[in-house]
């Protein structure tokens, strides 16, 4: 039998290609730096901002010596919209639509994180049903994000069909989002004290079908990609970023978990309904592009498990806190109940009255740890809002990731840390 048809097993190929140790990596980077100082023959290549595999408007200026990348100077800010400043002129309710334009691939996670932070500031308790619906929507956006990541990442490595396969499957998740929230990307679904609407009729069955179906799709992705010789050679032992590097550059999310650190805010600082569901934190140990792929595939399976548990145990009751001081009323009550109408007018004209103080709340967004910082001087508008977005930190780590690698691997490594420039520049 022709040896070319054998599938490479991870163990066999790990022996074939040597995995550099920490010392060797450090030495390699130091050597390229020395080389850069010594020689003047450096070719400068501008990649982006319109390059398709920068996933947005990121520009990287690469200094090349032949095929080896010596230095990278990233330029960000092409998509700067001043969201943090805009937030200072809006009430807490009005900030919610701004947040889902941060990371527009996983809009609900951004809504959710902001509402968690605002609730921590105001001391609002979210009812059980609200917490479960939030968890379902959050995990759905993790599914959509990881499937889109896989499609674009593998397309950067040269396949076209696989991109279409991934987009077809992401469509089922976006379909659920349209049914649940009314929009496909910019959901604006979370509210301070819960969620905007209850689950619609028929959502349960449809969602169960999708989460039964997606793990089968993941198995198909793995059948196509995991043992694909081309993908394997281009991803294995490329772009190694160890746990020490991740700590130094504040790189979180699947990149950190692929380096063997079981850091997941859903477990470490639980929020929403995560303490009540069982799931495993996906961890891999080789810290390369290939393992980031494996971690994300595991996370899709775990997300499906979480959604199934939430649908099974979905409690009855209100989905929005009956907190007249801080949350908008439920629409159907406004039309019947005078007290709810007064609450409606109060919330719109006065806004939610927050106490003085400052809070930080981190959530595990699909791309990594997403931090929300709010400083309040009292009143309905925050004095300062800061979004510690994962893409920004991942973007600044790009020089450390790609220096010393081959120029053809830049796109693979760049895609593997998962950037979205709306999130990075905000």
């Amino acid at each position, binding site marked *: *039998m*022709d040896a070319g048809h054998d599938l490479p097993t991870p163990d066999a190929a790990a022996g074939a290609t040597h995995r550099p140790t920490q010392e060797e990596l450090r030495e390699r980077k130091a050597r390229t730096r020395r080389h850069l100082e010594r020689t003047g023959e450096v070719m400068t290549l501008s990649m982006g901002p319109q390059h398709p595999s920068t996933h947005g408007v990121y520009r990287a200026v690469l200094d090349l010596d032949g095929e080896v990348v010596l230095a990278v100077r990233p330029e960000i800010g092409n998509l700067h919209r001043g969201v943090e400043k805009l937030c200072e002129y*809006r009430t807490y*309710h*009005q*900030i*919610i*639509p*701004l947040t889902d334009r941060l990371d527009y691939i996983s809009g609900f996670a951004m809504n959710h994180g902001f509402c968690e932070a605002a609730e921590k500031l105001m001391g609002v308790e979210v009812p059980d049903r609200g917490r479960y619906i939030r968890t379902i929507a959050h995990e759905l956006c993790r599914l959509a994000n990881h499937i889109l990541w896989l499609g674009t990442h593998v397309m950067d490595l040269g396949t076209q069909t696989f991109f279409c396969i991934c987009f*077809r499957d992401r*469509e*089922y998740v976006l*379909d659920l989002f*349209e*049914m*649940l*929230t*009314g*929009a496909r990307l*910019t959901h*604006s679904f979370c509210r301070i004290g819960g969620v*905007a*609407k*209850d689950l*619609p*009729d*028929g*959502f349960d*069955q*449809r969602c169960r*079908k*999708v989460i*039964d*179906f997606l793990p089968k799709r993941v198995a198909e992705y793995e059948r196509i990609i995991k043992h694909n010789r081309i993908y394997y050679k281009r991803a294995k032992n490329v772009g190694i970023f160890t746990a020490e590097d991740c700590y130094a550059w504040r790189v979180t999310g699947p990149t950190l978990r692929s380096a063997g650190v079981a850091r997941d805010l859903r477990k470490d600082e639980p929020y929403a309904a995560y303490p009540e569901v069982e799931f495993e934190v996906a961890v891999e140990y080789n810290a390369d592009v290939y393992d980031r792929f494996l971690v994300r595939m595991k996370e899709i399976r775990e997300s499906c498990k979480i959604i199934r548990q939430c649908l099974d145990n979905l409690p009855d009751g209100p989905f929005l806190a009956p907190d007249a001081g801080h949350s*908008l009323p*439920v*629409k*159907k009550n*406004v*039309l019947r109940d005078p007290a709810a*109408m007064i609450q*409606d*007018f109060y*919330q*719109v*004209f006065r806004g939610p009255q927050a106490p003085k103080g400052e809070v930080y709340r981190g959530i595990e967004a699909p791309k990594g740890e997403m931090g929300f910082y709010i400083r309040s001087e009292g009143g309905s508008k925050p004095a300062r809002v800061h979004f510690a977005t994962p893409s920004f930190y991942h973007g600044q780590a790009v020089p450390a990731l790609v220096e010393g690698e081959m120029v053809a691997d830049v796109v693979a490594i760049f895609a593997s840390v998962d950037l979205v420039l709306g999130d990075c520049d905000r």
Partner: protein
Amino acid sequence: MGLVDIVKKGTFVDILRGMSVTGTYFVVDKVTVEYPKEKLHPYPRFRGVQALLTDPETGDTKCVACMLCATICPSRCISIVGEQTPDGRSHPAGFDLDLSRCVFCGFCEEVCPEAAIVMTRQYELATFDKNDLYLDKERLLANQVYAHKELFAHPGERGAPAPAAAGAAPGTQEGRRP
């Protein structure tokens, strides 16, 4: 070349295996639609262009110019001029909505205490003329032909029925076909 390979090549095993994947897509439902000819129905909650509803009793708009939607709007795209009708009712003399600023967050629909402004399922808003994106009161009232009828009966939550579809396989979008 081993005997197994010779048999494999003689019987086209690999080609048949590959073509069986391709051939599957002749028989399963297709996931795409040919857009301008056939269109998908958005779900009842879909947030498309806004409409102002008319009160069937008075024939006038339900809006009472309370300014809630203009105040909550995060992009400040609604401007209302209120006035009193001769019978003492509050009523908007002008109701302008600038779609080029609108972010379709649905807050205007959510806070309206009279269920007068609703988001419809109309999503085909592309235009060559920028003035088409500036909706005045007449055009907003005209948009109510797009509003789903369920909203009149049960405004807001749980009113609109589910888009059937519960029985459709996730591999298809049958339920959303018109």
